[in-house]
């Protein structure tokens, strides 16, 4: 090749590279394909296994991308910020994300579709979950799954110790102590201890002590005597009867300790129960019992929250197809199917149906919790992550045996400032 020819080639190659870079910037949606972004969740496993039925019925193709919960949330943040048009349906957490996403203008208004569809029947959804996805009378999502905090326990250890299932938090502490003293390898109690992750499960303790995240005047509620007692009780339980390294634990780690037979009691969301009863995951699948959340001084007030919903991003170019998919995924039949796989849906009709696969004591605990439960599991604010970090701080200090009163004073003040800032926006 001559020198001149080589120069021409080089020039051509440079231009081609530049063109490819620019071409990489464009993109586009496709009307026959629905792009669905979901979290790994029992609901996803149960319902999306039959997605080819929907494809055959509708003539649409469904592309599912599945993430862990944190990854999904971060993906959505980045992609929606960038106005991505390659997500048509996404799983969102109503309590955590719907209000923020809506304020950012990221969510399509589904009111018309939801209200105008008699056969699909929006009125069949329970009121609490419906409220959680409705902002200023606009429906911004369809609730998929609900969850309540219940008590997981080991029937064999309780029997050996000759104890009844604890009905109050006092009895729970007593039983945890007794069992831990009697068994060398077993911790009395496990639950989440990681700063932000612990907040959602600590909620039930807080409510059952008669406290709440926010006071009536909109200031912080975590400095009240009731809240202080709740914080002290929860952190004492984990410090005295919990496994080492508990401040590092979210549900997968805590569940791991429980399913390996290393803990007697575990407070966690009921939606995760299959992890404990499935023999392929759990060494204690035969000896797991479920009970309603134990009563505190103010009674038993576990969380009862809608945990996931399906929404359509405003930036999607295929709102029609997206609704078609949501309509199918949340119809009575699929809600029931999910329920048979352990995911309690938000449809009233599904609650009335007999579900054979859910353990009897769990079903009973769920019914009780639904009556007395509280509809949120962390401060109801826009910047939930920051709020959870603030109110979770004293939990960590307490578990580590630090000065919990001082930590509560600091957190109380920081949270009041945070709430004042939030209300300015």
């Amino acid at each position: 090749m001559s020198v001149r020819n080589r120069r021409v080639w080089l020039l051509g190659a440079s231009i081609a590279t530049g063109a490819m870079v620019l071409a990489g910037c464009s993109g586009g949606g496709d009307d026959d394909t629905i792009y669905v972004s979901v979290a790994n969740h029992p609901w996803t496993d149960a319902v999306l296994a039959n997605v080819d039925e929907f494809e055959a019925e509708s003539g649409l193709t469904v592309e599912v991308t599945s993430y862990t919960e944190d990854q999904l949330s971060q993906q959505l943040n980045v992609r929606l910020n960038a106005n991505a048009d390659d997500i048509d349906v996404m799983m969102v957490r109503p309590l955590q994300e719907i209000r923020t996403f809506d304020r950012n203008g990221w969510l399509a208004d589904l009111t018309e579709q939801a209200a105008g569809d008699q056969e699909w029947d929006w009125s069949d959804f329970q009121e609490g979950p419906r409220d959680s996805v409705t902002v200023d009378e606009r429906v911004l999502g369809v609730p998929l799954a609900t969850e309540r905090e219940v008590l997981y326990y080991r029937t064999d250890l309780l029997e050996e110790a000759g104890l009844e299932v604890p009905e109050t938090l006092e009895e729970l502490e007593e039983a945890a102590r007794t069992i831990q003293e009697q068994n060398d390898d077993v911790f009395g109690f496990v639950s989440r201890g990681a700063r932000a992750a612990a907040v959602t499960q600590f909620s039930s303790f807080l409510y059952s002590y008669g406290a709440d995240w926010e006071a009536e005047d909109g200031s912080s509620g975590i400095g009240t005597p009731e809240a202080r007692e709740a914080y002290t009780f929860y952190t004492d339980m984990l410090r005295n009867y919990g496994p080492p390294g508990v401040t590092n634990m979210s549900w997968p780690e805590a569940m791991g300790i429980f399913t390996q037979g290393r803990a007697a009691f575990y407070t966690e969301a009921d939606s995760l129960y299959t992890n404990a009863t499935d023999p392929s995951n759990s060494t204690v699948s035969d000896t797991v019992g479920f009970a309603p959340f134990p009563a505190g001084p103010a009674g038993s007030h576990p969380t009862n929250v809608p945990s996931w919903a399906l929404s359509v991003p405003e930036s999607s170019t295929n709102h029609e197809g997206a609704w078609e998919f949501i309509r199918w995924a949340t119809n009575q039949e699929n809600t029931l199917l999910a329920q048979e796989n352990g995911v309690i849906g938000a449809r009233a009709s599904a609650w009335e149906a007999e579900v054979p696969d859910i353990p009897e004591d769990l079903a009973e605990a769920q019914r009780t919790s639904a009556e007395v439960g509280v509809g949120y599991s962390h401060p109801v604010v826009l910047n939930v992550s920051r709020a959870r970090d603030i109110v979770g701080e004293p939990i960590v200090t307490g578990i580590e045996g630090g000065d919990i009163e001082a930590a509560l004073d600091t957190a109380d003040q920081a949270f009041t400032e945070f709430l004042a800032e939030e209300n300015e926006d």
Partner: protein
Amino acid sequence: MSTALTSRRRAPWQGFSDWANRHRKWVLATPAIVFVIALMVLPLLYTVVLSFTDAEGSIQRAFDFVWFENYLSILSDTERFWPAVWRTAIFTAVAVALEMTIGTAVALLLRRPFLGRGVIRVIMLLPLVATPVAVAMMWLLIFEPTVGFANQLLGWLGIPAQGWISDPSTALPTLMLVDVWQWTPMVILILLAGLVGLPEEQQEAARIDGASSWQRFWHVTLPMLKTTVIAALLLRSIDAMKTFDLLYVTKGTGGGSAHEVETLNIYAYALSFDYNEYGMAAALVLLYFLLIVIVLAVLTVRRKEAQR
């Protein structure tokens, strides 16, 4: 002869080709310049703009200019910013110092041929080629306090169980060790390349003069190896300062429940992707950028001095 050739085969694109030839320096550099401007200069400028605003939630929402408010609030933040600066500095300094020391020692050992040297080299390089996320998850399992291998091993030796990564007071040192495990091979690799290129004569002369092996290392090998050492130091320092995957996978957002391994990188991630406070995050990232540039400048000047 060339004029005859040109006039005979004058194609339509020849004019452009001639122009391109005359300006080939610029023509060939254009894609690179466009690339750098589009992917580095513009985002950087945008970050500077964001750092002066109160942008949060979504970058498409309207925001107000607050000028230096973000910088002031970060610089006066003794709860998370300054501890993160110290953690970044300590992590970098300790990990890199250990990597350089161990790396030099092993490189010197591996310099001379011996039986099985090839095999040892390959085994040693394994941590280097493993994905950091996979490495982090593996160590997380090993260091799990209740059922993990590390504590079982200690148990067999009669040593009480440790908290390792899950205990806030030992998490950072443990993760430094993992970093040393993973990245020392890179230092070895670079130094071995440098050692192989060194002339033998000076060594020979020193040996004849009766210098001990330590004296030969300190007065002959090390001075000649200086530029390579500084190159390795430079590469490892930049990498260690921006370590992210290892810390994030093992301790999550916020660097653990007590922020025990929250370096500047992890804090920047929390501000932007967890809290969605883009203005604050941009200011933090720019301060961080400044820090890296300073360290880089110091090391580069030292390297130039060494080369002289």
